[in-house]
């Protein structure tokens, strides 16, 4: 049995490393060339995981093209086999891997785009809750409005980036990349209030505001922090956007 355990370990190790030899001790009945048979199996394992990554990162895949993506995916998969049996979660570490990938240096924004796709997928598979309408705020007095705290939709998240990730995402959604200026930075808020995942870009002050609200700060505190970032912070717009994105699922007053 111990031999089998060793063989099993060698087998799984060789499975994800195309350059590895066929593990010693492997036999098959009536097959002269065990190596070829193992290669077929190894190829199927790798091909299915490459497909899984491609399905999880369609924009990264489109950005770099099939050949490059396959190379990137094989390199990632070799060192990062799935750790949970749910492939829709596969690739959590893919953005970090991309950031370190030498041949990806010509596309410095690629890692953040991959991170955005992780956020998108997390939102897509997150729990369902009913968002509330902005008119619910009218039931509170001006004093209480300042001290409002917000229950946030389970699918909501924010991603800060030094690259125009929202424009890149939008370009792929619409099929028209247009003119994207890589010298712009975009932060994105992601939420799935109903069937579709929604994205919106947030400028720096709005991002501070959303962060504070999502971290449980009061409306007054969040406004103060955003106004500190930018005196011209447009509270009315951001407050409306908070509800338009379906981020708010409940309201209460902090005493």
């Amino acid at each position, binding site marked *: 049995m111990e031999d089998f355990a060793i063989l099993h370990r060698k087998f799984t190790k060789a499975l994800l490393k*195309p*350059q590895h030899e066929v593990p010693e001790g492997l036999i098959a009945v009536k097959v002269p060339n065990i190596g070829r048979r193992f*290669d*077929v199996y*190894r*190829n*199927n394992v*790798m*091909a*299915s*995981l*490459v497909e899984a990554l491609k*399905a999880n990162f369609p924009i990264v*895949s*489109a*950005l770099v093209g099939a*050949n*490059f*993506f*396959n*190379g990137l995916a*094989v390199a990632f998969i070799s060192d990062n086999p799935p750790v949970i049996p749910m492939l829709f979660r596969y690739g959590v570490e893919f953005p970090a891997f991309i950031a370190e990938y*030498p*041949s*990806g*240096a*010509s*596309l*410095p924004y*690629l890692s953040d785009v991959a991170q955005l796709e992780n956020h998108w997928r997390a939102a897509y598979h997150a729990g*369902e809750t*009913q968002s509330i*309408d902005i008119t619910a705020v*009218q039931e509170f007095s*001006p004093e209480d*409005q*300042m001290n409002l705290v917000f229950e946030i939709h389970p699918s909501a998240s924010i991603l800060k980036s030094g690259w125009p990730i929202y424009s*890149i995402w939008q*370009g792929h959604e619409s099929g028209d*990349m247009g003119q*994207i*200026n*890589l010298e712009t930075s975009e932060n994105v808020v992601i939420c799935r*209030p*109903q*069937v579709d995942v929604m994205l919106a870009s947030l400028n720096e002050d709005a991002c501070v505001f959303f962060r504070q609200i999502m971290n449980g700060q009061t*409306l*007054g*505190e969040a*406004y*103060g922090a955003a*106004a500190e970032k930018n*005196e011209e912070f447009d*509270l*009315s717009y951001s*407050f*409306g*956007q908070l*509800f*338009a994105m379906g981020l708010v699922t409940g309201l209460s007053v902090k005493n």
Partner: protein
Amino acid sequence: MKNLNPSKLVIAGAIAAAISSFAVATPAFAADVEKCYGVALAGENDCKAGAGTSCQGTSTVDFQANAWKNVPAGTCESIENTDGTMGSLTDMKM
């Protein structure tokens, strides 16, 4: 320097403005859209036959050789920096 201490009037005013401009334009998140359970993205919650299943790749050894060209060649080509340095087809080894 403006006084950054948030006043309740500023907030109340902004809220009122947000309600008047967004309440009309925004689709209400009422339960008027029925989520069709079981309908997900193609291949996400069904047993996907075709690419990536065990029937694929049996006659090839695509992923054995690592003989791919290490140069991005997708839609990144349409993203240009102001000086045109990004998204180029040439492998910019740094």
